[in-house]
Structure formats: C-alpha cells, structure tokens
C-alpha cells in the first residue's frame, strides 16, 4: 500500500509520517538533532550537536509518539497493519502465535519473517515456547490491559531480485478480550488504523453451536461460559465504534475488510465432514490466494452458521459491514483437541495462514488465483 501524503507509517502509533517529520536523535547520547540544509541536500546523516559527543543522529523516532523506529523504517515497501479482536478465550494469541510460527517455519512459505523490536521478539518467543515446547495454550491476556503491538518485518523471497528484496512492515495488534463497547483509546487507535480487522470467533461460544455439541467437547472452550450473544454484541460494538470514529452514518454499511475467523474448527469437524474448510489450505502450495477455495470456505461457514441458527451473529455482520468486505475463515490453531487438562498434543495448525494470505492478496503482495 502506498501512503498518499506520507512516506512512512509509524508502526507504534500507526501515524502516517513524512520522512522529514521523523525525529533524528544521536545514536550515542540520544540528543535530538536537526539536519542542516547542507546535510539535507547531501542526504548526510547529521552530526550530534551535543558538546563532546561525536555521535551521529542516525536513530529515528516518531515525532508523534517518540517511539524509537527501526533504522530501516524508510525502506519498507508496504506498511501492513491489522488487529486481531475477539472475546476473551477465543484464542487470539494462540492463533497469532501459530500463524507466525507457520509463516516462519513452513518450507513452502515464500516469506522471511523477523521481529522488528525486542518486545515482539520476547512476546513471540514466550508464546511460541509455551505452545510448541511446553505444549500448553498461551495464558489468556488480561482483559482490559493494552498489550503492545507486535511489529514484524516481512521479506518477500518470491519477488527478490539480485539486489533487492521487497520488505514490508507488519503491525499486528493482539487484543485482550474486547467487548468493543468501552474501548481503550490506545486500542481504538490500532483498530482505527488497521487495514483489516480480524475478528476471532470461538464457535463453541455460539449458543446454537454449543447446544448441538457434546459437553466433553464444550469443555475445551474457555469462552463457552460467555453470554450466548457475546460475539454478536462484540461485532455490533465494533461497528458502532468504527462508525463513530470514521464518521459513517448509522444506516450506512462499513467498507472495511473484515476477516471473521472461526477458531477451534477441529472441535466441529464432524459437522463439516469432507467440506473444503476441513481440507488442507492450497494457498502456499499454489503460491497465491485461491479465491474458489476461499469462496467455498466462506459459503460453507455461512451455511453452517445458518444451519446452527446463528442468525443473530450473521445479522450482526451483514447489517454492519459491506458484503464483499467480509470473509469467513475456519482455522484451528492446534489442529486437534487438547490431550489432557491444559495439555496440547502435537501442534498441527490448520488453515491459520488463510486470513493473512487474504490480507496480503488485498495488499497485492500475493496474487489472487
């Protein structure tokens, strides 16, 4: 995505910046330095003006949020940002962790993924260790807290030339069980700034689904204890919020890309039988977003929701968001139910990359087939 009036997007505050708006600070003493006209003209890194300091003002800071920006912030081709939202227990962090893990470790993946800052590294490593080494789901993020966004750098091998490899910045905001009625200002900034909103739904938390599923399967879900309409209410609340902040009239449908991702799809695999959503994702193998497959999955999930009597939820989606901008996905972060109390079996994520590849296709990074 090209920014219209700016060169850079601050991955922290999602503020669009012009390169000249970036604050330059000394890499030794941290003192801000303004480049002279000559330095600007010659595109030289300004020297630190602090007496005695011989550093260069090579470090960059966001002039809005003062966050220290990566040194290569000006080199990114695209600035991706999306928010993962969902009620507590819907599996947001697990989904995000397995998605990133798959993206980094799948042999067929054409992308090289690396964290942009130490916080992202630490958070990812901790979550990755919990799931893949300790075989335990990531502990729930405390609701109401504002976790820092995860900042990733994607290098696209498929478009690499002898001299250049396209890079993208990816800011992912992993929510903390929002009800979207009382949204924290910081969270609202990410929601507002996200190109795509990923709404995670635990199917076991849907009343219609839960009523037709055996209790032992329901026990896998920690969000099943929510109010029956919690997911629908979240969608309504989110839509209201977007309307208010984007000046959209209440009667007008929102034109924002929404990936409605049903997690824990393995829990209802018997219902889906040999449907497309239960088949392995063809995207990586075919190196693109396979629209027919995505349409089939979308249709299957919608149809399944209807058959389960989840019209409230479907209505919440259809009456708030423009039809073409919403796509349903079915994923399973772990691929199989837990083998014991708080104990995962072999982690075999199912279709967790589908929403991301859809987003990349929207950005034109991957082709739509």
């Amino acid at each position, binding site marked *: 995505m090209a920014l219209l009036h700016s060169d850079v997007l601050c991955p922290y505050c999602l503020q669009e910046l012009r390169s000249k708006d970036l604050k330059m600070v000394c890499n030794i003493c941290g003192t801000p330095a303004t480049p002279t006209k000559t330095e600007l003209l010659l595109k030289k890194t300004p020297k630190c003006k602090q007496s005695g300091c011989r550093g260069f003002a090579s470090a960059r800071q966001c002039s809005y949020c003062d966050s220290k920006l990566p040194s290569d912030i000006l080199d990114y081709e695209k600035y991706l940002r999306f928010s993962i939202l969902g009620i507590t227990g819907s599996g947001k962090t697990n989904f995000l962790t397995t998605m990133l893990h798959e993206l980094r470790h799948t*042999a067929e993946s054409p992308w090289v993924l690396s964290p942009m800052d130490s916080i992202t590294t630490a958070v990812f490593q901790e979550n990755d260790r919990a799931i893949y080494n300790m075989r335990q789901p990531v502990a729930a993020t405390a609701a109401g807290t504002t976790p820092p966004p995860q900042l990733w750098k994607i290098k696209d091998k498929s478009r690499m030339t002898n001299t250049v490899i396209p890079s993208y910045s990816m800011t992912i905001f992993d929510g903390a069980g929002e009800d979207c009625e009382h949204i924290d200002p910081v969270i609202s900034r990410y929601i507002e700034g996200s190109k795509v909103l990923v709404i995670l739904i635990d199917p076991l938390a849907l009343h219609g689904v839960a009523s037709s599923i055996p209790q032992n399967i329901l026990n896998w879900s920690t969000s099943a204890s929510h109010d029956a309409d919690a997911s629908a209410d979240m969608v309504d609340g989110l839509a209201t919020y977007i309307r208010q902040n984007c000046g959209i009239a209440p009667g007008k449908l929102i034109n924002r890309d929404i990936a409605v991702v049903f997690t824990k799809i393995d829990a209802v695999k018997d219902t889906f039988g*040999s449907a497309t959503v239960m088949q392995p994702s063809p995207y990586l193998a075919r190196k693109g977003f396979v629209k*027919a497959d995505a349409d089939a999955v979308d249709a299957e999930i919608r149809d399944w929701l209807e*058959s389960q009597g989840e019209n409230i939820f479907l209505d919440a989606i259809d009456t708030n968001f423009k039809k073409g901008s919403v796509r349903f996905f079915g994923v399973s972060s772990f691929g199989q139910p837990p083998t014991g109390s708080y104990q995962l079996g072999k982690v075999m994520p199912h279709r967790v990359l589908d929403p991301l590849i859809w987003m990349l296709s929207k950005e034109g990074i991957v082709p739509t087939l």
Partner: protein
Amino acid sequence: MDRRNYFEILGLDFDPPEKNQRRIDKAIAEWKKRTEDMLANETIATRRAVLSDELSLHDDMIETLRENKTRNVEARALKEVRTQQLEKLIDIMLVGQSGTPEVTNAQIRNVHLKLKLSPKTIEDTYVKKGFVVQRVIKAVNLNDAFLTPVVAGNISSKISQLQAMAIPKYPWTSKVSDLYDLACYFGGGSDSDTGSYHKKRTTELYSIMESWAAQFASDMSTQGHLLADLFTAGTTQVFNTEANRKKYDQSLEREKMKEFFALLKAAPEDFKKDRYFADSCIRTIQKNFPEYNLSLALYNQEAGLMQDPYEPLEALIHLTCGSCKTPAEFRTREDAERGKCAVCGAPLYIECPKCHKKVPATADRCSCGFLISEMQFFDEYVKATEFALKEMDLGEAGKQYANAENAFPGHPKLSALSQRIKAERDKYDRPLNELKALIAARMFSKAQTLLGTLSASMPQLKLDSQKKVIDEKMAEVKRLMPVGSSSPVDKANRCVEILQIVEDYQPAIDVLISTRPRKPLNLSAGVMGTSSLTCTLSWNATGDKGVKYQVVRKKNGIPQRQADGEVLAADIGDLSYKDTSLQPGISYGYAVFACRRNVFSDPSTCEIANFSELDTKHLRTSAENGVCRFSWVLPPNCIGVRILRSTNAIPSENPSSGSTVVTAKASANFDDAGVSNNNTYGYRLQCVYPYESSFRYSQGVTVMLTPEQPPAALRSIISRIEGRLVTIRWNSPDNAQRSVLIREVSSNAANSLIGQVIPASDINSMIGTGRTYANTMSTSMQAQFEIPPNMSVALAVICVAGSKGIISDIVRVSSVEKCEIDKKQTRIEGNRLRITLANKPKNLEKIHYIVAKKTGSTVPWATIEDVKQKSLAILSLKEYERDGMILVEPLPKADLYISVIGQYRMSDGSIIYSEASKLRLSNKPKEKITYRFTWAAGGFFSRARARNCKLIVSSNAEETPEIYVVYKSDGHIPMKLQDPKAVVIHTIPESDSGFTNNEYVYQFPDNTWDRITSGTPLRLFIQDDDMAEFEIASSDIESCKVP
C-alpha cells in the same frame, strides 16, 4: 473543708470505677435534679447553704469524671477510705480471739453490700488480717444421711398397719413403733428390752430379721405378708449395712421432728434467711441432729431454701459432745481442740488410736480410715473373747479378739488377752486338729478311738459335735455291711461303697482282701505309625467297683503274672493305654490285670507284631538300559530285603511259580540285570526280620519298572516370537524318533532339572501342571504354536523316550498385542503424515516407526531386526499420548510404506517387540477434478432459471473415481456424502480411462429441479478412499446453486 467523694455522692461503682460515660452523665443529672429539688423545698438556711455548696461541685464533678485519669484517682481515694474502714472493723472483731479466724463468703457478700468494695478487695483485706476464707460449706447430701422417702415411708406405713392389726399370736403388735421393736419382740424380748435392741450390733439385728423373713416368706396370711415385707425391708434396706442402719436411725429422728418442720415450712419467707431466725432453728434441729452441717442442710431442705440456701455469716466450728450430744461452737480450730462439753465436761476431740491425730469425738472415721465409732464396742468384744475362752471355743475367741484389736488397736487389755488365747491354743489345738484331720479323711474308726482318748484326758473339751458325726458314720457303715447269701462280687462292691463312707472300716477291708477282682474283658490291641509305632490297648470293665488296672508287656512272649514282664502302667483307672515305646520287627505280648487293694485278677492278654516296610521316602528305583536298580534304607531290626520279580505283574507275597526271588536278603541296594529293555517288570521288596531261629517277611513294597533306552537332549534350541506366534527350532542328537514335548513351566525348581532324565509321569510334579503347547517328533526339527497375548511364559523343551524324558532346555517367550495403525485416522494432511494407533496394547513402552518409499523391487516394510539395529524412529508411549499422534514431515511425493513396531517391557523386565503393523498411503500429487454448473441464462429483466442445467466436470486424470452430485434436503450445503439429508441426484461412474477430452458433461433433466428449492447448493463428492488420490473442488462456487 474537704468535699465528699463524687462516687459516693452519685452512688456509682468505684471498685472498679464506673467507666460508662452515659451512665455517669445520667447519675450526675439525676443527682443534680434531686439536689435542686431539695434546695427548692428546703427552708433552713444552713441546710440550703450545704445543698448550694454541693451543687456548686457540678462542673468540677463533670470535669473529674470525664477524664479516665482523674476519674480513677477519685475512685481510688474512695476505695482507700472504705478499705481502711473495713480493716478497723476486722481489728475490732479480732480483739480477744486466738487461733486462725475464718470468714465466710456470706460475710464477704455482706460487707460488699455495705461498703461497695469489690469481693476481691474484701477477701484480700481479710486475708491480710490473717483470716482464712471458708469456702462454701459443702452441702450435705440428705440422701446420704436418711433413707429415701419411699423406703422410709414404706416401712413407716407398714409399721402403722401392724400397729392397727390385732394378731392373737402376737399381742404386742400395737406397741411396735419401729424395726428395733419388731426385732426385740420376735427375738424373744419383752417391753423392757426394746431400748437395748437399739444398741445391738447390726449383724445380730440382721440375723434376726433374716430368720424371720424366711419363716414368713411362706405365710400367705395378711399379717404374714406384712411381717414378711417388714423383715425383708430390714434385711435388704436397713440392717444390711451399718450406713443403712444409721440412715434408718436418722430417719426415725427426722420423723420425730415432723411437727417442728411443719411450723418451719409455714414461717414467712422473709424470716427464713434472717440470721437470728435461721440460727435459732438450726440450734433446735441440732438437738436431734447434733452435726451442724446436717442440721443446716435439713433446715434449708425443710424451709424450702434448697435453690437459694441460707449460709451463716459467721465462720464457726460446730461440734457435738460425744457423750451427751450437746452442741458447741468455736471460732477457731485451736479453741475447739482444747474445748470440752459445757454440760458433761467430756472432751470434744479424741485422739485416733491408729494415727494419733485429734478427731471430733462424734466422727465416724478418722482421716486415716480408722473407724472411730467402732471404739465403743471394744469392751463388748473383750467380754465376748473371754466368754469364748471360758467355753473353750477357741475359734470364736480368736474372732472376737480380732474385732477388739480392730476397734481399739494398742489397747492395754489386748496383750493379756492375746497371751491367754495362745496358751489355750497350744494346749488343745494339736489333738483337736488331729481329730479334725481324721474326720476330713473319712478315717472314722481311728477318729473314734482318738475321741475316746481325748474325752478321757481332757474332759473340759467340748467334743459333742465331732462325736455325733463319728457315731453317725460308724452306725451307717455297720448297717450297710453285707450279710447272708450275697454273691462275692456283690459283697465286694458293697464293701467298696462302705469304704467310700468310712475309709478305715476293717470288716469291709477284710472282705475285699479275700475277694479277687475279675479279669478285664475284651482286650484288643492296634498298632499305628511307620517309623514311630504306637500300640493302643483297650478293654472293657467287668463291673467290679474300686478296681484299677495294671498293664504288663513282654517281648516275644505273653506275660502270665503281674511281674512277668515290664510293668508299663499301674493303678490306672482308664480302660485304654497307649504304648509308644514299640520297635518294628519285634513281637510284643501284653497282659492287663484288674487290681483292688493289691489283690490282682487273672490277666487278659494279647500279642502284636509289626514288621515295618521300607520307607518309600528313601527307596530309589530306576529302570535303565537293561537293568533295574534299587536302593533303600533298612528299618530298625530289619536285617535285609528280599526282592521278588514277575513279568508284567506284581508278584504275590510268597514266592510262587509266577515270580522269581531275585535276591533273598540284600542289605542296602540291588541291581537286577536279568531284565530286557522295553519289558515291564513287577517287583516286591519285602523286609526280612529274624524270628526265633528263622525269618519273617513284611508284606512288601511293590513297584513296576520298564528298562529302556534313555532319551537324549536336543541341541541348539532357538526360540523366536512374532506377535503371538512362537517358533522353536532344535537339532536332534541322532536319527532316532523321539517325542518332543513343549510344556509351560510353572515350577521354579525346573531350571535345576535341565539335562536330567526324569520319569515322564513325574513331569507334572517337577515342572508344574502348565499347558502343553506342542507335541511333535524330534526329527521335525521345529515346532510352531501361538501363546495368549500379553503373556510371558517359560517353556520346557522335553525330549521323551518311553517312560522317561529329559528337559533339554527352558526358554522364555513373551507375546504381546500388535501395535496396530488406525487405518482410518492415519492420513496425510498437507505435507504431513499423521499416524494414529488403533490401540495402546498392554506393556507398550515405545513405538518404533518408519515411513519409507519404495526404491527397488523390495517393499520397504520394517522388521524386528531393523528395530534391533536401531534404524527406525522411536517415540515413547508417553510422548505419543502427549502428542496424540505420530507426526512425520516432510514427506516424499510417492507411495509411503508405514511400519509401526511396538516395544514392550514385560513384568519380568524383559523387552520384546511386536510384529510390524503396516500401511501403504499414496502421497503422489492429487489429481485435480473441478466442476461447475451452467444454467439457462436469465433474460434482461430476469435471473437465471433452473432449466437446461449442465454439469461440467474437468480433470486430466488418467482414471477417475466415482463422483456423486449431491444436494441437501434442508437446503444447506452438503458437507459429507454420508449426511442423512444428503440426496444424490446423479452419479458419474468410475472410469479407467478418464474423461473423454478431459471433460465430463451431463445435462440434467429439467424435472430434476422441480423438487429442489431455489438457492439450494450443489456439491460433488468422491468416496473417502479416493480422497488420497483425488482432489475435487468447484471452479465456480456461485454456479453450484440452484437458481
């Protein structure tokens, strides 16, 4: 001028001080109002001035009492004043007193009410002044002092009935007022004696009551019943113990005060706790019940004050004169111990003769346990002792002396009395004891003689009772002596009975000595045991009384007299005898004699002989190649073994034509070489015993033996197990055909038998009764069989020849349930293989697996050897359970050969492997099949219609599976072919050549859609089995909907 203390003015508690501010404020307000009212009504100027002054204290009062510190100072000041007042009062009370004064709790409460000091402060003050606080007087339990009202009332009412009853036989009934009077009249006393019966000992009264109770028990008349009841009450409730008698006495006294108690009950309640009234009443009661505490308890009981009893203010020591029963009071114990009765001058305390402590004269017991009340009977006991001595009744004299000693230990009179008794005993005891012993031993003849001697030499001795007994017994036996024509047996039996009465009656003894008892009947003998022999003799009695038996034994002969042989037992009363000192091989003769007064009967006799057999525990027999071998251990007295042999039969006991004596007398072993292989021989081994100049033979031990060529051990035994199938291979030592038996070993001792030749019949006992898994020939070189799953078993490989076998080896094999791959759940997802097990067999420890592709002509299935060479991947059961699968990635794009072999750890620690579970899956790229529908195009203003529908299926596959066109009857998307609502509207047949031009087109009849709702999704499905090779998807999902 000093002001009054504020606590005093307000009447508030000061010890401890009142802390409740509201209460203080209320008291101040009330005082102020009260004082102001008084001031308003007061006319006297001086008095008004006083009141005004007092009112002027108001503000200071509030100030002082508000603060804790000042309030406490004010309270403490008043407490000090009041304590000083109390001390002065105590000082006044102590004037002229000596000893340790006591104060009661009642007095402390009294002072508390007056001075408002706390009881604790008052008590401390008294203690400081040398007082001892007398704790609450322990209330006397009236039930311990009186008979229960029911019992007392019952006796009283019956006495009243008796008084009213006119009985001609007992004209004095109207004069009977209590049980003492009753005892007096029935004990033969007159009116003047009634008083003396009150002083009689309880035991005497009890015996009177008891004897009359027994007499009246059978009297059915009204008066009889009444008297029986009274005497029974006397024995069971009054005179049975000293305590009950005392209760009865006190109940009688209480009855006498009935009128006074009636007046006391009617007295005003206010008076009852008045000190003067109460103390006066208690003194009145003390006239009958001198003990103060009892009187106090009676007062409280009769005045109805049991719930809130009266307690005397003064702490006095109340005593009663032991002689005249006059009460006395003292302030201190020291005064009381020194005090004497004011009326008769008797000391109120006496010294306990036992522990020499001072004890109140009226006390029953001293604290050391000595019974003080018993002292009064001392003189009586002394008199009774002297009387008994005079009467020459030394037993009674000793008894009375013991009573006297108990009543007053150490009394001077006792030593003289004791000496007298001893002297009398020394003089008369020996002859008397001798006489008693003779009587006890039923030697009445001798006793009669001694009695005559004693009567002559000691005429003062009273021997009437002894003489009476002796004369009676002697008269009885004289009467019983048989006379006339009775048989000798009857006479003897009668004399035995007589001697049971009089042991030394000579005429009876003479008869018995002259009469021989009859010999025992039916003597029989039986021998038991092998190594240690026991002979049991038994016989029957003849009916002769007073006989004992003597058993005599003789070796090699029969005893004829009681001294002819060894006397085993004499004077036995039983009719049997066990002889345990027998030796085998010797003949014994037994004789049993009946014996009475050393007169023996003729003998009853029998003879026994036991020729022991060879002990089979020590007998070894074996049939070998052309020889039968025997070895043994001879029993005692046996001099050798004779062996008889027959072919195919057991030889008889005596040599005959069918048997051969192979040895006449072998000492320890014998080898019979005169036999042929494979023939069966019967042997009898008889023990040889010397008897006089010849021999005797035992019955003999028999055995059948078949000499034969021995079995040979198999060589190079190898076992192998796959799953449950066991294969055992061996090499035969030669070409001979022998049976090979493969048997389960259940005996731990079997290992020690490897290589040993054992009788085939002993296999069970040696290796246990396990299952036989195979029975084959040695030349077949192997045996195959299955064992149950999950079992570890030791197998003995036995080579059997004829009747013998040899355990060639013992091998251990274990079977396990195969670790099966779940063929439905195991599948390829993406580029991952997910292997799931159908079961988790018992003892499974690890899973070895491999996913291989075919590289040559050989199918790459894994074997147990591969596992042993560690060429397979390993996953522990725990890891498998944690993962829920075996995950293999990445996968080659080819046919995959999956082998899974279980590793099991058995209970004995051994490790075994299951055979491989195998599955082939294809991971070749799936053939793609795409499909779409076309419908009749809609018009400019209309949408597409459900007409002219064509299904176009495209695939480049060389062969295509069966494909189903499906919709769901409820209008939803069909997700699986097996859905009950799924309806197949068309089936594309399987094709070995693929679609023509890579496309299949099918035109649906228009009426197909008549029954299908508009908007119903359509999907194409293939069978699950085909999904490994084919992938089917719609190329235009929107077209797959019925318009």
